[in-house]
Structures are given as structure tokens and as C-alpha cells.
């Protein structure tokens, strides 16, 4: 056991029983007296067991009064620990790890760039959809789907935006791109909403298809128009259905021989949508009016509209084919001033050919 001497009374004690006050060693009774005196003189008066100053405060190695010991504040450290305490450096592996972490962060952000773009587009689309601006939202959501076609949220939002802006094809594409239209959670409100919209839209399209088939049959024009109106009411987001329903009304007016109504509808349709189909419809209505009235102005206008229809159909072989078929019947109507249906014309002049519009 190490021993030491009290600087005041000169007696020898075990190191464990000695104290340090301002660098001087005392025994317990003497240190209390010295501390009181130091306090009265305004000096530092706190003392500590000498043993605390004899061992390294970090590793507990005995340092006694070694000259190599390092004093930091009230604590003493051995020669090995002293410099470490004074400047605790970062270990090399930590420096390298932190550098690697920063590099990983850069890689993570660079890697996430395409997802940031997709996410941003999705949030913009979501916000526009929430404001009811579905057709504006759709391109943003489609951009998201280009990167993440399996995202439930983006797919359902895109399908909703597409259906509510009358774009059933885009909705179908978005839904099919998601596991072939399969969703794990069919109870989600977002899914149920899209499901309901999809059923409404596809129901309307089925009706429209039925109406289209009926319209090609003689005597079914009224039923066809009714069905098309139902489809248009069922799915008002698709204006083409309402347009088609109105167009079917031309057929109804034709059957009823109400050529003024036929002409009025045809003129309205042409005004709203100047396409080959409406031009041909107007040419047909004008030809009917000529057939009834004999007014050559109608004939001239009918021929002009047919020419416009031809110009508008340029580039579309399918439209040109339909137009050529119609032009033949329209010429017959203008020359004979007889108004007959297509089926009747086919029966009379195209026997052996399939009657089709």
C-alpha cells in the first residue's frame, strides 16, 4: 500500500487517507482546517482525495506524482490518456464511414430523381383532380404511370381523371397496366369510386354500341336514338355520346320525313364540329330538301358540302370509302329527287352486296 506524508502535521498515512488542496497534501483533520483558512483568505478551498490525483481519471493507472502525468482541470491523466483527452480525434474508420454516408446520400438523391419527378407529377395531378380539373390532371398522372405503372394511388387517380374527362381508353390503359387490372385491396374508397365510374362508363359505351348496331337497321332509328340518349345521360363526361345522340336524331327526322328538322340538326352539328361526317350529314339533309322543294340552291349547297366532306376526309382511307358510298346515293337523290333509305338503295341497286353504313 502506498503511503504519504501530511504537509501540515508531518505524519505518514495511507494514500487513501490523504487529501489534496491546491496541490498540497494533507491528512483529513489538517485538510479541513486548511480548507477553512483558504476560504477565509478567499482562496480555492475545495479539496479532493489524493488517490483521485494519483490514478489516471480515465484508465485508473497509478500515476502517483509522475512528471509525465497530465493535469486537465481538476483531473489528472496518465501520459497515454492525457493527449487523447486533450484532443479526442475521430477514428479513421469513422471519418471514412461518414464520408461514405455522405456519398450514399448523394447517390440516394440522384437515384431518387426519377421518382421525385414521378411523385411531383402525381401530387400535381392529385391537386388538379381535387379541384375537378380532370383533363388537366390526366397528363401529369400519365407521366407518373410511365415510371411507376404499379402505383395503386397513381393508377386510381389517373383512371378517375380519365373517366371523369371522358377518356375511357386512357382509363382502361392505366388500369390494365396495374397487374392486368388487379388490385389487392378492393375495399379502398378510391378503388370503389373508380370501380363505380368504370361500370357507369362501360355501361354507357355498351348502350352506345347497341344503339350503333340498331341504327344500321331500317326501322330501328327511333330505338337507336333512345338508347344513344340513355348512354349520353348515363355518361355525360363523354360529349361524343351526346353528339352521337343528336346525330341519331337526324335518322329519326329522316324516318319521320321531317326534313326541316333533319336540316336543322345537320346544320347545328356542322357548326359545332366541322368534320367530314357532319359535312356529309348536311349534304344529305340539303339533298332531301332539294328533293322535296326542287329549289336548286339546296342542290348546289348539297354538292358543295359533299366536296367539303371530301376535303376533310383526305388522308383517311376509311372515311373516303364511306364517303364514296354516300356520294353515290346522294347523287341519286339529287338526280331522281327520290328519298330512299340506304337499305332500300342497296336492295334496288346493289343487290348481292351487304347492306352496311
Amino acid at each position, binding site marked *: 500500500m502506498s503511503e504519504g506524508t501530511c504537509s501540515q502535521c508531518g505524519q505518514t498515512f495511507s494514500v487513501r487517507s490523504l487529501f489534496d488542496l491546491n496541490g498540497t497534501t494533507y491528512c483529513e483533520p489538517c485538510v479541513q482546517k486548511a480548507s477553512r483558512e483558504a476560504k477565509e483568505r478567499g482562496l480555492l478551498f475545495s479539496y479532493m482525495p489524493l488517490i483521485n490525483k494519483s490514478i489516471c481519471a480515465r484508465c485508473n493507472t497509478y500515476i502517483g506524482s509522475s512528471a509525465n502525468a497530465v493535469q486537465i482541470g481538476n483531473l489528472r491523466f496518465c501520459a497515454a490518456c492525457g493527449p487523447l483527452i486533450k484532443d479526442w480525434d475521430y477514428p479513421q474508420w*469513422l471519418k471514412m464511414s461518414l464520408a461514405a454516408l455522405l456519398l450514399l446520400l448523394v447517390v440516394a438523391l440522384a437515384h*431518387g430523381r426519377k421518382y421525385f419527378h414521378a411523385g411531383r407529377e402525381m*401530387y400535381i395531378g392529385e391537386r388538379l383532380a381535387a379541384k375537378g380539373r380532370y383533363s388537366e390532371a390526366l397528363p401529369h398522372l400519365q407521366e407518373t404511370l410511365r415510371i411507376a405503372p*404499379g*402505383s395503386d*394511388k397513381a393508377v386510381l387517380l389517373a383512371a378517375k381523371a380519365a373517366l371523369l374527362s371522358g377518356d375511357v381508353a386512357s382509363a382502361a390503359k392505366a388500369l390494365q397496366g396495374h397487374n392486368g387490372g388487379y388490385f389487392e385491396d378492393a375495399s379502398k374508397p378510391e378503388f370503389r369510386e373508380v370501380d363505380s365510374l368504370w361500370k357507369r362508363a362501360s355501361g354507357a359505351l355498351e348502350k352506345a354500341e347497341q344503339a350503333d348496331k340498331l341504327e344500321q337497321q331500317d326501322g330501328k332509328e327511333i330505338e337507336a336514338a333512345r338508347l344513344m340518349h340513355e348512354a349520353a345521360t348515363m355518361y355525360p363526361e363523354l360529349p361524343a355520346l351526346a353528339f352521337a345522340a343528336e346525330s341519331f336524331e337526324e335518322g329519326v327526322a329522316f324516318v319521320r320525313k321531317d326534313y326541316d328538322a333533319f336540316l336543322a340538326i345537320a346544320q347545328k352539328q356542322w357548326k359545332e364540329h366541322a368534320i367530314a361526317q357532319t359535312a356529309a350529314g348536311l349534304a344529305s339533309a340539303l339533298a332531301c330538301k332539294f328533293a322535296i322543294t326542287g329549289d336548286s340552291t339546296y342542290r348546289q349547297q348539297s354538292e358543295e358540302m359533299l366536296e367539303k366532306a371530301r376535303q376533310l376526309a383526305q388522308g383517311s382511307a376509311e372515311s373516303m370509302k364511306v364517303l364514296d358510298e354516300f356520294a353515290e346515293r346522294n347523287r341519286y337523290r339529287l338526280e331522281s329527287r327520290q328519298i330512299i333509305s340506304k337499305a332500300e338503295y342497296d336492295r334496288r341497286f346493289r343487290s348481292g352486296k351487304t347492306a352496311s353504313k
Partner: protein
Amino acid sequence: MFFIPGPVIAALTFPGVIIHEAGHLFFCRLFKLQVFDVCFFRFGNPAGYVIHQQTEDFKAQFFVSMGPFFANTLLCVLFCTAAFLPVWELKVFDPLAYFFYWLGLSIGMHAFPSTTDLSHLWADAPRLAKKGNLLAIVSLPLAAVLVVLNYARVIWADLGYGIAVGVLGPIAIFRALAR
């Protein structure tokens, strides 16, 4: 609530422990406090520690105690932001994104200062707050919440915090950017 031994959690989320202790060490060095011992990671309780000199400087005390909380939270938000969209919103199977998300959550989970760190702040903050020390005024409610959350670690408050930061942080960032 299921029990998973602390060392297992620490092992699974070791980057967070190392970064937390590195944060303590960084602020000790910044405020020139003597460091007596450092353990960046071990299979024990605590999983890491920095033993440093006590100080009367509240600013130093605040940053040494709370520095790792802010650093870990920030890194958690950044890593989770990079990986949030493919993992949560876009549902893209991207292993790299899942790795970054694990890294972010691991770091966020070890953001909380220990109760020992907080006890020093808690002891001095009220007195200094009365004197108008802004840092002390800020640290009072923060420390109070963190003390409660620290005790709630038994019910996975640390993991909950990591997830909250790793989910809500990126959502807030993306919503703001999409404006």
C-alpha cells in the same frame, strides 16, 4: 406489444447508433469539452456512449445533448425523402430504395437524446429560462417531450419517431414542392 432485445434492435439499426455518438463527439469537440471515453457501438446497454466533461455553458450543454437529435432527424428526413416515393407512394420494387429507407429509419430511430443527456438540460433550463435565455426557453418544452418519448421507448416510441419523420417529412417536402 412484442419484445425484441435491445442489442438486436441496436444491431439492426447500428448506423443510427454510430451517427448519434459521432454527433455527441462532434459537438464536444466544437465546444472544446474534454472527452474521456467514446464507444460508437457495442452489444450492450447503452449501445454507444460519449463520456465528456461537464460544462456550465448552457449553449454547449444544449448542443452536445440535442445535436445528435437534430443531426439524426435531418439525415433521416434526407434518406427517407430519397426513398419515400418508390417505397410508399409509387410502390416500385427498387432494392436500392429499400436500402436507403432502412438507413434513414435506422438513423431516425436513434435520434432521441438519452435521459442522462436530457437530465443536464432539464436541471439548468428552468433557471436560465427565467433569466430569458432563449435556448433554455426553447429547450424546456423540447426536453419535456423528449423525456416522455424516451420513457415510451418500451412501446417503440423511437421506431415510431423514425417512421413519423421518415414518412411525414418527405410528404411535407413533396407537397410543398408540388405547389
